[in-house]
């Protein structure tokens, strides 16, 4: 793998869900690439496909989903070509880990935090060799020390006592801290964080985002951070990809997107944010039905700049500036008169 190669490269990925009522094309030729050490935001409203994309990378799509075309290359390896057992042993939980939105639903209520950390380390410890069946006492001891040190690193008070507790005895913020510790313990190259702060209060969100940013920098991992919260994306991401109804709208550095969004959807999304001193503008219309999406650019029924070509052809990516990519026939290429807020 050459040094400047992306860590994760998703190319023209299409995923459909098969249901009784028909076939929903939930991802439509989405491309995305993540550099080593980068925090990339995957931003969009409900139903835009951000969680499906995250699950496709992790290899945990539901059984009724099918990958129609496209590639997912991680660290030079085609993930879609791996056997399920190889993906499970080498990639998932090891090289790519996951932070869920709802930490409570992801713990077993029947075991203590310490038991669940031990179970994780037994199978996913960075020390474990592929195919290693047993769990030596020496490795168990080192793994335990590693886990306690990590709990300290996520700023949980008194980790020795905490590991004897059950998940319900922790607060939401503490559970999310344990989840972050569990995601980092295998020393992954990529962490997929699916709305990790959505369920948290704003002061706890600020604490967790601050912690996550510091830890990611210290561990040198990359993060794919899905969120519908533009404020959280502004706080933590280096770059963002904005998605709409299964299509990629725009990819840019955070500072570029928030000051010079080129896609009409990106611009209208920023205008919907509650801002002091200006009228609140929503986006007229509704998100399309995934079973019968509009042709061409899926945003065209709600777009003020839509023309005949938008209805006919899904626009290819174009680059208004280096590192800024937008899939729109009629993007805004001027600088915004004023910043989004």
């Amino acid at each position, binding site marked *: 793998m050459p040094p400047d190669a992306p860590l994760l490269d998703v190319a023209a990925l299409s995923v459909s869900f098969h249901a009784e009522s028909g076939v929903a094309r939930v991802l439509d030729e989405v491309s995305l690439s993540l550099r080593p050490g980068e925090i990339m935001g995957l931003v969009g409203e409900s139903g835009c496909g951000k969680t499906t994309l995250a699950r496709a990378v992790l290899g945990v799509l539901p059984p009724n989903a099918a990958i129609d075309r496209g590639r997912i290359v991680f660290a030079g390896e085609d993930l879609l070509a791996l056997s399920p057992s190889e993906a499970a042993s080498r990639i998932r939980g090891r090289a790519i880990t996951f932070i869920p939105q709802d930490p409570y639903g992801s713990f077993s209520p029947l075991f203590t935090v310490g038991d669940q950390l031990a179970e994780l380390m037994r199978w996913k410890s960075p020390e474990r060799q592929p195919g290693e069946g047993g769990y030596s006492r020496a490795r168990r001891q080192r793994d335990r020390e590693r886990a306690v040190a990590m709990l300290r690193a996520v700023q949980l008070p008194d980790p020795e006592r905490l590991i004897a507790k059950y998940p319900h005895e922790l607060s939401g913020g503490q559970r999310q801290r344990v989840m972050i510790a569990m995601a980092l313990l295998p020393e992954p190259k990529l962490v997929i964080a699916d709305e990790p702060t959505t369920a948290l209060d704003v*002061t706890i969100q600020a604490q967790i985002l601050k912690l996550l940013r510091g830890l990611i920098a210290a561990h040198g991992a990359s993060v794919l951070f899905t969120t519908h919260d533009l404020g959280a994306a502004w706080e933590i991401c280096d770059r963002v990809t904005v998605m709409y109804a299964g299509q990629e709208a725009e990819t840019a550095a955070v500072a570029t997107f928030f000051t010079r969004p080129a896609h009409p959807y990106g611009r209208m999304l920023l205008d919907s944010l509650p801002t002091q001193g200006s009228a*609140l503008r929503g986006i007229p219309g509704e998100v399309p039905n995934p079973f019968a999406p509009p042709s061409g650019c899926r945003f065209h029924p709600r777009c003020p700049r839509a023309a005949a070509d938008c209805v006919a052809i899904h626009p290819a990516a174009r680059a208004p500036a280096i590192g800024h990519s937008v899939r729109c026939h009629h993007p805004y290429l001027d600088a915004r008169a004023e910043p989004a807020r």
Partner: protein
Amino acid sequence: MSGAPLLELIGLAHAFPIRNAFGVRTGWHKALDGVSLHVGEGEILGVVGESGCGKSTLGKIIAGILPPSAGSVRFEGNEIADLPPRAGAALRSRLQYCYQDPGASLDPRWKIGRALEEPLVVHTKLSRAERRRRVDAALEAVGLPQAHLDLYPHEISGGQQRRVGLARVLMLRPSLIILDEPTSGLDVSVQATVLNLFATLSKAHTLAYMFISHDLSVVRLFSHRIAVMYLGRVAEIGDTTQIFADPKHPYTQSLLAAVPQIGGPRVTDHFKLEGEPPHPDALPPGCRFAPRCPRADARCRSEDPQGRTLADGREVACHHV
């Protein structure tokens, strides 16, 4: 504000009993502890705070869904706390409670028209024609076509269901609506539309809102005054512009500092507040915020601060203001 306020709360408290496995009470969970505030006619009061601060309990007590364990609720000059249900219902018909998703509370087997008419049948003696006129007016107020009267809830979209739910809340021409987290779970593009609708309705019908939310940027845009709550108490209450420009209570300051400012400095670079709120079953003595407060001293840890009115009219419960 002129004359008596529309809604006045004095020393409102609510405690849930904590019971052990045998049903024996072992303590009290103080969800609300001595809250006093008022809402004027046509005024929008934002109530903000984090989970467990008691903001939803407050809304439910005012609406009569929960009984207060102490204190008084005066609405349009009448005491409505602790009334027998029937008497309370009559006084409360001009005070409506709007759940997070008002559309979800529609009966799936009732057509929209019937659902909208029901409150009038229950609470008023209007004739059929008059009821029909009111239904039409409410539907128009929320921006839906007359044709929707003959549809079932599943035949319209989620956003339209929400509008119907809101029209239903408006049927009895309330003077105050309690909006409990009306925008949580909504995408920002839809949230903007819903908020604009609330604002239009408030102006058109001189409607007052108690707007309960955890989202500070929405509350800021929408409310005339704001009450910031922490663990069952009002920490600070005052004009929106005052509170955002110059928060006095250390908790308000931390809360505002935690909100991401797009285009501004990153909160995660300078956010300082440590720790989490204590459990409401085991409140610290003295000021409830003292364990996390950067300015706490010995007095804060022993003496519970009472709300004091400052020169600019706002009320703050802190020893150091």
